[in-house]
């Protein structure tokens, strides 16, 4: 066989190479130069991200276990950008808290490993590859969640994550085994042809769906989310809420839209019910959160509920709107987490009422935060509005007006708690506000990129058009 076909896996290989390179440097780099590992990692990953933009032609290898196309490739790029921003934002934290304990490299290695897992997951061609990708993407995160070994809640978060994840993967494996039983194959293409709606296949679908719903943190599979976000280091929380959720959404979309298309009349109702539950539960819990990380956790749950509006119609339009929304969501949520990260790193404060009077001391940060929150709430002219509006259009295009109505009601509820944060930052005056501080270069870079994304993605239409075309070859 000719090895050129391996070029389809260029991204994976490159990432793996970077990871190994980092391990080697870890071995050979002198103790006093350790801090430079961060710069190196970010630099390398930056290169990787840029290289990612070169096109990769469509194709399958390993007998269809691994397959990629423009959409998948584009999505990998989205993940890359997300991770890059995230690394930029957490660079300072790594420098100050991790590297000095001489544990910088593991962080990158684990994170890149998990990213690699997601690559495999989203370009999986059969359930085995999918399962391996899933696990590879989950386990390192569990390790990272428990990364601050001195903190108790960190370990708690790790345990909760790993146990729930194990349960989820167990359940979803059980489901996969049932699908296997009904179809006699674990290859997506074969399954699509033969699968029919028998009780067993439906049960399999639901069990399997639960496994992914766990990663997207849909109700009622979401309970781990808030606790893990709160306990884990912020960069991990934001990684969970953005990257891993995004990847899971993407693969779930692919599976439902293509592989399990024949069961659509089942899963559209499933999605319908879960979407409503998720939006309401997420919003209602977010209403009363004090800790910013928990707050963002529940807000991200609610957002997942909105994403399902694009799922429910199961066609190109739906796919386009979902991917578009996820893209915007990546930027918005990273911006929010970035601000939280910066403030918590500077002052260790993570509660909403610590933010009171923030605007008067740190106007720039609070403006970024406000943009991010407005984008999450879906206020024009920032990108989030367009993302949501298009999701609603998608749902309405198949006549799900009731669902859209429930969704907009939830938008209003969500606006309430987003405004609570805005209130704290802008309206309130505090007697001991967070003092003014200047961000380091990396953090500033990370925030600027997100802000640009938030502002541009909505108003600049070609991006959506491009995504829409890509969604054609789902």
């Amino acid at each position, binding site marked *: 066989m000719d090895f050129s076909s391996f070029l389809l896996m260029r991204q994976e290989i490159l990432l793996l190479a970077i990871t190994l390179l980092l391990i080697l440097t870890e071995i050979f780099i002198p103790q006093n130069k350790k801090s430079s590992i961060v710069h190196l990692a970010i630099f390398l990953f930056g290169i990787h991200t840029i290289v990612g933009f070169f096109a990769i032609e469509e194709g399958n290898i390993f007998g269809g276990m691994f397959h990629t196309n423009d959409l998948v490739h584009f999505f990998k790029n989205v993940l890359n950008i997300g991770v890059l921003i995230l690394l930029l934002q957490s660079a300072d934290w790594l420098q100050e808290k991790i590297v000095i304990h001489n544990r910088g490299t593991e962080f990158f290695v684990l994170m890149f490993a998990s990213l690699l897992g997601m690559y495999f997951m989203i370009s999986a061609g059969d359930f085995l590859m999918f399962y391996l990708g899933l*696990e590879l993407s989950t386990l390192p995160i569990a390790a990272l969640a428990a990364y601050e070994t001195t903190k108790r809640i960190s*370990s*708690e*978060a790790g*345990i909760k994550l*790993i146990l729930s994840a194990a349960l989820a993967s167990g359940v979803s494996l059980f489901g*996969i085994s049932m699908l*296997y039983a009904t179809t006699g*194959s674990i290859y997506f293409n074969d399954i699509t042809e033969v699968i029919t709606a028998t009780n067993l296949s439906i049960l399999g679908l639901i069990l399997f769906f639960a496994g992914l719903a766990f990663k997207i943190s849909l109700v009622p599979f979401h309970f781990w989310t808030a606790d893990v976000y709160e306990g884990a280091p912020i960069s991990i929380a934001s990684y969970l809420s953005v990257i891993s959720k995004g990847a899971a959404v993407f693969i779930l979309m692919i599976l439902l839209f293509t592989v399990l298309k024949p069961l659509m009349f089942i899963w559209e109702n499933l999605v319908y019910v879960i979407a409503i539950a998720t939006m309401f539960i997420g919003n209602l819990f977010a209403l009363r959160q004090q800790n910013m990380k928990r707050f963002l956790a529940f807000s991200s749950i609610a957002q997942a509920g909105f994403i399902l509006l694009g799922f429910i119609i199961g066609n190109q339009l739906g796919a386009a709107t979902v991917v578009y929304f996820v893209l915007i969501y990546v930027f918005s949520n990273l911006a929010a987490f970035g601000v939280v990260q910066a403030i918590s790193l500077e002052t260790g404060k993570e509660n909403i009422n610590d933010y009171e009077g923030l605007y008067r001391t740190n106007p720039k940060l609070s403006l970024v935060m406000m943009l991010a929150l407005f984008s999450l709430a879906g206020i024009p002219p920032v990108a989030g509005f367009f993302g949501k509006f298009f999701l609603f259009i998608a749902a309405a295009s198949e006549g799900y007006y009731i669902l859209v109505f429930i969704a907009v009601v939830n938008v209003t509820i969500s606006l309430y708690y987003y405004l609570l944060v805005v209130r704290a930052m802008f309206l309130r005056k505090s007697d001991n506000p967070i003092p003014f501080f200047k961000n380091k270069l990396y953090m500033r870079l990370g925030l600027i990129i997100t802000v640009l994304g938030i502002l541009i993605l909505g108003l600049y239409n070609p991006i959506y058009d491009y995504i829409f075309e890509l969604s054609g070859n789902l």
Partner: protein
Amino acid sequence: MIEGISIYEILTLTSILFFIGVYGFITRKNLISILISVELILNASVVNFVVINKYLYPDMLQGVFFSIFIIAVAAAETALAISIIINLYRQISSVEVKDIETMKY
């Protein structure tokens, strides 16, 4: 193919195994035993794969391979879980579930 034992009995067994695992997960007080219950769940599906492969689609070995991979991953999972539990034990010298409820609501 085991003589005299149809696939249904085995599937029933695995289902029972699965739910034993679930039951254990929900009721055990000790993190380690919860971990063990998770293993039961995984094993249930492992057996599933093998049996389905053997009884229904004997001409290809997808199920079998899948089960091998599952076992491997499960091992990794357990190792990671154990290590985190140990780390927790270092801090609070306990592996009780009730002690990891500080974050709630």
